[in-house]
């Protein structure tokens, strides 16, 4: 019973049902009007929370209402919430539920009250319709909503969040293990977003990889913003997850093909350049030679010059052969790959250069225990090994016999071959960009042609691999190939 007369009148005029909360936590008093609004007689239903939650309240509203209610009862935290409550004839009515402080009128009651204001909808403004549109939008755009409540240390997901994350409808999200909802390599990103939002109120809108209940990793657009209370304190984060896996996968695929096209284009450009440059140097020499022959009167000298043509012709042929090799790489890359054992490929290489190895007293050490074979074009693997091993021997350190170490291994699902030597090394500060260029040589050796590493790189890249180099002058050089 309300003690305050004024309050009584207001409530009566409001025509509103309410609950009185007494100190006994198991007892709420439901007002007459509350029964009337639902069409029940007093003895037809049990006036307690459990009955209300299980039998009267719409199941979508149960969780939030229960939390709100207990928070209000135990901690005096006021709330307002829209809920749907079942009437006697089995239909749901929409109520705006509010506690004392949320009332539009300024009246003080001495006990805690929960009011249920019935919301009368226009005929077309059916709540189920609203709900229907919300659900449709969520489903059609695969956008789920969520809320993290810092006070209660809980997070809430709507049905769509559960669906895109492949959790059952009754799944209760864990706040403690929330990092596990993100792919391992995205956990830092998620932590940064949430931390900044929680601490500084910085909203976030980002693309991130999440993990479903079935351990499927997929792309999500995660949008979140801080929720404040009236004291401008951040009490939670509200946001959405949108499943963008299909678009993102397409985008990544597109980006990958763009990268491939760009790298092919740059190789093609490079190749055109090489063709132009290398052929031009021979034709220029030829034309200079012709001028000289025409200009000189002494027949003896003329004959001497004509002999030079042979040298130019030879150089021109060599260049053309090199260019052919490069073209061949790109036409051969569709050759069938097959399982090649590193040991076998190396055997073929060392047989071919047995004399060179013996003469230089080179030692070749191998460790193929981590990975002993690979799907590759056998001829390429042999050519790559041949180039790198002969380089290691050719550019050996003058003070010591060459040692070449080959190690194949697998790391993070990727396959690698590492070839290191103890040779003279290359000054990477000077030559880093040029090391794999055509006709670039860095040593005074006479047989340095500058084609080997260029071909090696082209062969590796034509099969979508990469090669990198690390070297220290007088210590040695290491080439790392990622297949």
């Amino acid at each position, binding site marked *: 019973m309300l003690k305050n007369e004024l309050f009584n009148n207001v409530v009566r005029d409001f025509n509103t049902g309410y609950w009185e909360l007494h100190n006994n936590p198991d007892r709420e008093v439901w007002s007459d009007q509350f029964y009337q609004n639902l069409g029940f007689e007093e003895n037809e239903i049990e006036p307690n929370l459990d009955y209300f939650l299980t039998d009267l309240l719409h199941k979508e509203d149960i969780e939030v209402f229960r939390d709100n209610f207990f928070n209000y009862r135990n901690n005096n935290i006021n709330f307002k919430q829209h809920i749907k409550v079942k009437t006697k004839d089995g239909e749901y009515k929409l109520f705006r539920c509010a506690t004392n402080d949320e009332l539009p009128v300024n009246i003080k009651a001495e006990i805690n009250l929960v009011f249920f204001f019935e919301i009368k909808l226009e005929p077309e403004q059916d709540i189920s319709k609203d709900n229907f549109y919300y659900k449709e939008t969520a489903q059609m755009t695969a956008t789920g909503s969520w809320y993290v409540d810092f006070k209660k240390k809980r997070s809430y997901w709507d049905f769509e969040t559960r669906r895109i994350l492949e959790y059952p409808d009754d799944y209760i999200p864990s706040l403690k293990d929330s990092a596990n909802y993100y792919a391992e390599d995205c956990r830092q990103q998620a932590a940064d977003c949430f931390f900044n939002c929680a601490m500084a109120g910085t909203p976030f809108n980002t693309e991130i990889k999440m993990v479903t209940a079935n351990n499927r990793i997929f792309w999500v657009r995660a949008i979140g913003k801080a929720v404040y209370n009236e004291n401008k304190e951040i009490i939670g984060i509200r946001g959405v997850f949108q499943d963008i896996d299909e678009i993102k996968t397409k985008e990544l695929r597109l980006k990958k093909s763009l990268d491939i096209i760009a790298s092919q284009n740059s190789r093609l450009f490079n190749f055109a*350049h090489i063709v*132009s*440059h290398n052929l*031009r*140097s021979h*034709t*220029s*020499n030829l*034309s*200079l*030679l012709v*001028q*000289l022959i025409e*200009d*000189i009167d002494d027949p003896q000298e003329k004959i001497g*010059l004509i002999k*030079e043509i042979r*040298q*130019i012709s030879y*150089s021109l042929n060599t260049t053309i052969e090199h260019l052919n090799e490069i073209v061949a790489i790109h036409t051969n890359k569709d050759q069938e790959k097959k399982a090649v054992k590193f040991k076998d490929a190396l055997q073929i290489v060392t047989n071919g250069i047995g004399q060179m190895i013996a003469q230089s007293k080179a030692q070749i050490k191998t460790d193929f225990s981590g990975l002993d074979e690979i799907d590759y074009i056998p001829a390429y693997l042999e050519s790559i090994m041949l180039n790198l091993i002969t380089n290691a021997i050719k550019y050996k350190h003058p003070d010591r016999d060459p040692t070449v170490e080959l190690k194949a291994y697998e790391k993070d699902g990727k396959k690698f071959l590492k070839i290191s030597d103890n040779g003279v090394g290359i000054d990477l500060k*000077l030559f880093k960009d040029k090391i794999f260029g055509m*006709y*670039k*040589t*860095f*040593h*005074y050796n006479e047989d*340095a042609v*500058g084609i080997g590493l260029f071909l090696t790189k082209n062969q590796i890249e034509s099969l979508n691999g990469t090669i990198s180099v690390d070297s220290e002058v007088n210590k040695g050089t290491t080439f790392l190939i990622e297949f």
Partner: protein
Amino acid sequence: MSQIGLACIIDDDSMYVNLVKKIIEAKKLCKNLMIFPNGMEALDYFEALLTSLNKKCIPEIIFLDLNMPIMDGWEFLDNFTKIKNKLGKTITLYIVSSSINPTDIEKARQISMVKDYLIKPVTIEDLEAIFSNQVL
């Protein structure tokens, strides 16, 4: 017609160097010719000159190739620019390259000490004109 004392070719293409050398000798374009197969050797030479400045050993004209092993033409230019004023003699430098890449040509234009960019093949007339200009 008076003659240039010393010219210098920095180029790794021995065939080209031989032919130019023959032209210079046949046309008597200069008295002496210095040849370096790459930028590094040329730079070593000029740096050594700084300690014993003998003007007779400083060329009046340099023909510089771009694509060379060990030290290419650009790197040579970078280093040579730093020391050329200490040599105390005007040196005319031409880039002679088979590169027709517009970026190379533009880059060469930006360097004040490059008098001109010649695209290989050079002709006997080109060489004659360059050497006679130098004398005037």
